């Protein structure tokens, strides 16, 4: 039978999913019987959910994002143009099918 320490370690290290099915079943059974491990597991889930909430999905909506994206696009195109110009001239047209999809 798994100890609380082993169960807690498996949960915190995300290794439960990799465990063999019978070990997973044993751990589920342990969680059913042990309120401390259940509480621990719930706390870790709450911490993950809290971090997701705090990070928010509003990154792309912020006022500065549009400016940043424009600037990144410009710098990326500069970086790519610069190097290609040093070498051979770029192909004006991309090849029709450079790679066989199969």
């Amino acid at each position, binding site marked *: 039978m798994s*100890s609380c320490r082993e169960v807690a370690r498996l949960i915190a290290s995300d290794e439960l999913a990799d465990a063999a099915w019978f070990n997973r079943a044993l751990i589920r059974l342990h969680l059913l019987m042990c309120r401390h491990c259940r509480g621990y597991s719930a706390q870790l889930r709450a911490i993950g959910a809290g971090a997701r909430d705090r990070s928010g999905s509003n990154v792309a909506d912020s006022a500065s994002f549009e400016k940043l994206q424009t600037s990144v696009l410009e710098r990326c195109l500069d970086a790519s143009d610069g190097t290609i110009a040093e070498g051979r001239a770029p192909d004006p047209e991309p090849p029709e099918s450079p790679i066989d999809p199969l």
Partner: protein
Amino acid sequence: MDKTTSELESATNVGSPTFAARIRERDAEALEEVVRRYLPHILRAARGAGLAQQLAEDVAQDTFVTFVETAPRFEGRSHVRTWLFGILYKKISAARRSRARDDEMDDIEEVFEQRFDSAGSWTRPPLPVDTEVYDAEVRQGIDDCLDRVPTNQRMAFVLREIEGMDAQEICKILEVTRTNLGVLLHRVRNRLRECLETKGIEPESHVEL
């Protein structure tokens, strides 16, 4: 006709070999697609890793510039996203170097062990929590608690919990084994849990209603 459709999909699907070839050639449209698709994620991860807004924007920008500079070496063996986050991780490590304490020895392991007896049962079990109260405590305290976490642990946490990546991809980005990743996640989660628990019982951090 089918073939044309699949070629077209293959060329615009960022995970495909055709797309990898376009990245190597620094095809402007392909680069733009990558920026538009992943900049929000890269910026969010940089913020999540603890960089202030301006620094996070600078690091995100540098990440894409390095991405374009190194694009000719992109072989498509890993996903574009994995490659990008790998660059980001190196930039974040450099930016946080002064404060990073990615020691092998980590006192959180000792703190964790001390919660169990020799048989492995809880001697100091987690404090029983009301879920709503705990959620409020997490929201209030997590930034502060995350601040004390070493960069590699923090990145592991951000990629897993915020970006929702699977273990295999995170291992490639952080260049660690699955076992190492387990240790990083174990440490960061226990560190956060302990930190929040300490905050929760301090009288001055009571939530004012």
